[in-house]
């Protein structure tokens, strides 16, 4: 298959100077990279999270002590990052499923990426606001 034909088949025009590569350096590759990184980060966090929750089996005090870490404003920022990573991974996962199972999926993969990026932004703005609200109040006055 020629480059021109495959370009039309995936609904994209060859724009890059890397002649003959439709994938490398484009949205397809970067969404794949982001999917890997967010997946690995979330999985490593999951190990830590099962262990910290397991402290409920040790004593209420040890659990509460460790859970207080999550309430620190800096860790709170990391949690927003985690939520962002999980949300991207989930939305992009839906896009991957659409590419695999929907006949028009491969043709619309790029459009779908920008749709999920838009959804991500729309969800993350109020999400980050409400997650950080308390930390903000603690840091700048009115909170306790």
């Amino acid at each position, binding site marked *: 298959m020629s480059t021109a034909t495959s370009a039309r088949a995936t609904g994209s025009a060859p724009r890059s100077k890397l002649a003959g590569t439709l994938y490398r350096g484009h949205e397809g590759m970067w969404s794949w990279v982001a999917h*890997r990184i967010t*997946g*690995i980060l*979330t*999985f490593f966090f*999951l*190990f830590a999270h*099962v*262990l910290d*929750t*397991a402290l*409920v*089996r040790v*004593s*209420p*005090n040890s*659990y*509460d002590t460790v*859970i207080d870490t*999550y*309430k620190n404003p800096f860790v*709170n920022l990391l*949690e927003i990052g985690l*939520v962002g990573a*999980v*949300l991207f991974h*989930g939305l992009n*996962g*839906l896009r*991957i*499923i659409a590419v*695999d*199972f929907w006949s028009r999926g491969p043709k619309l993969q790029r459009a779908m990426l920008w749709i999920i990026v838009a959804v991500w932004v729309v969800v993350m703005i109020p*999400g980050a606001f*409400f*997650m950080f*609200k*308390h930390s903000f109040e603690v840091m700048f006055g009115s909170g306790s």
Partner: protein
Amino acid sequence: MSTTDELTIPAPRSSSRRRLRGRTNTELYAWLFMRVSGVLLLVLVLGHLFIMNILDGGVQRINFGFVAGRWASPFWQVWDLLMLWLAMIHGTIGLRTVINDYTRRDGTRVTLKMVLYTATALVIALGTLVIFTFDPNIT
């Protein structure tokens, strides 16, 4: 092209019959599991993140009493148990793919995957035990 070239290069898929015999569908099931568990996790994990981080005071209200209240209900026990198993297996299959992609030596690959599977089994066992043996009156 000379005849010699054709003889030195095996015809494509020449040995497929041999490879097909005795083969399993592990990779297919792993691929399918990622998609099915992914959709379920989308609901379970995003629901979990919303409840724990945003709803009703967010992370600031979480303590031992909060966990005890939640796990008094079988609904949240099943939710958390399902989320634990699906997320751990989903993540393990994902990391298995990453290990397969980047390791060059057989020994490295096998070792990393054994470490991964052992860690996964331990964490699933621990998490399951905690959910089933949780005691709200522990001191």
